[in-house]
């Protein structure tokens, strides 16, 4: 991948609300042009605060953000013109029609009227049939689509989706992911927040984990998946060991449970896992075991251990 300047760069960003609650500690983050970035974290971790600052909804306490090279405070017009936001809450103007509200959004972002574009966006979101319906007459899922249409009305280069699938049915979720992929193909950078790990796994190019107002990990999803691919074999011993014999030094082993267990970590995707050799070596060392089990650490486990490790 050629070195590109990041489309969003966040540096030294913090936010303390008037109540004294520190929603963001010091956040540094770079989003690459054209990627799908999943911001993963439990409720209250600071996901929405981070997005809200980048999009101009909340003033930061310290730090700077640049969107496509434009400072979000000093050069806010240029920065915001690039950004589309679909917030978490369903907030719509109940009495407006679908088409009117989407056209309004386009005007608000300073773009020339473009009925063809509005039509395309509405069709992409299966809203065209409802174009002249008042928003209050739509179902929750349809309202969510309207909010996405509003965010796309000014052809943003960066799209923020805050918890896009919270309370969304399966069909809409599938539609949404298709749309996200199409947008990415057209060069739009997408940042989504979620607390569903499968979602990050399915969609993202990179995953950032945020907890208690700090970004604690940013990694390529494939790298995370590689970690995911690691399994552990736990052997319960017949007699506890004081130490591992020298002959087993070549294996990735840990003596656990006070010497009652040996834990072997291996890569399922490697050509040889080493299990057979290990069992043979154990037999030769005279170590007998009464039970064995294998376990796979999920992204969830990695996530939980990361989050716990920080508390």
């Amino acid at each position, binding site marked *: 991948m050629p070195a590109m*300047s990041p*489309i969003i760069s966040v540096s030294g960003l913090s936010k303390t*609300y*008037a109540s004294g609650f520190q929603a963001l500690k010091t956040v540094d983050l770079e989003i690459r*042009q054209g990627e799908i970035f999943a911001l993963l974290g439990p409720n209250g971790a600071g996901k929405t605060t981070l997005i809200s600052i980048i*999009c*101009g*909804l*909340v*003033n930061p306490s310290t730090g700077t953000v640049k969107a*496509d*090279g*434009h400072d979000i405070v000093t050069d*806010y*017009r*240029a*920065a*915001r*013109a*690039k*950004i589309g*936001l679909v*917030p978490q*809450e369903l*907030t*719509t*103007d*109940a*009495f*407006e029609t679908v088409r*009117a509200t989407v*056209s*309004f*959004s386009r*005007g*608000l*972002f*300073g*773009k*020339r009227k473009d009925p063809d574009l509005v039509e395309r966006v509405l069709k992409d979101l299966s809203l065209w049939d409802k174009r002249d319906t008042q928003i209050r007459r739509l179902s929750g899922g349809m309202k969510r689509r309207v909010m996405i249409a*509003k965010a796309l009305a000014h052809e943003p280069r960066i799209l923020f989706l805050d918890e896009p699938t919270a309370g969304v049915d399966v069909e809409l979720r599938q539609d949404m992911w298709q749309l996200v992929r199409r947008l990415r193909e057209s060069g739009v950078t997408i940042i989504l927040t979620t607390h569903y790990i499968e979602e990050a796994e399915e969609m993202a190019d990179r995953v950032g984990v945020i907890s208690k107002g700090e970004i604690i990990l940013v990694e390529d999803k494939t790298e995370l998946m590689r970690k995911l691919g690691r399994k552990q074999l736990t052997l319960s011993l017949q007699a506890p060991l004081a130490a591992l014999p020298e002959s087993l030094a070549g294996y990735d082993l840990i003596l656990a449970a006070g010497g009652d267990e040996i834990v072997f970590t291996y890569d399922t995707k490697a050509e040889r896992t080493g299990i057979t050799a290990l069992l043979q070596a154990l037999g030769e060392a005279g170590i007998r075991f009464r039970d064995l089990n294998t376990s796979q650490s999920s992204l969830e486990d990695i996530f939980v251990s990361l989050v716990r490790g920080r508390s």
Partner: protein
Amino acid sequence: MTSVSDAPPAFNGRAIAAIYRFEMARTLRTPLQSVVSPVLSTSLYFVVFGAAIGSRMQEIDGIAYGAFIVPGLIMLTLLTQSIANASFAIYFPKFTGTIYELLSAPVAWWEVVLGYVGAAATKSVVLGLIILLTATFFVPLRIEHPFWMLLFLVLTAVTFSLFGVIIGIWADGFERLQVVPLLVVTPLAFLGGSFYSIDMLPPLWRTVALFNPVVYLISGFRWSFFGVADVGVGVSLGMTLAFLLVCIVATGWIFRTGYRLKN
């Protein structure tokens, strides 16, 4: 990565137009509440004080009582409607959450305010003119200074729409939204000489009345109709502009600091 065509406009006129149209559409959806109701309630004053009681009242400054109260009543409606329209317009998106879009859009605060104030003031001025027209059915009217009449009408509508924006941002509930219009503005308007000349007051109360900003609005507006005023028209104009300036500065401060909007 930034190409020339990406350069954002230094002035987002389309956003102002979008907000203005949105607000006007909201009014047109509710004509009964927006237009008919204020016109009807003001017309009741003309019927009661102008046609019925007015005939038994003395003239004030040589003007029939029914006609005398018309400028004050128009001002009363102008003040309350401007505040109500603008404060609701800005409070409601805050209440429902749709304000996120305004805050995330490439618009300057003064562009947002221009859209809302423009729409609220337009409605008030149109209402004022409809009431004026209605008044002519009940009482004989003359307008000596039509230009000044319009100027006071527009200036007052703009000023109090701005005041409404401030109230709408400050309010954190529907009650607060109502408090200032009902408990402050309506009394000030009634005591500000809508129904009498402040020269009719005892000297002490006349002095007290001069601290009421609405006195200057009504006086100036009445002068544009009949050529007579409680205070000099220059003072009226000066006071109106001063209050406008205070509202502009306050609104600017609110948006720059993000008070009650971005924290």
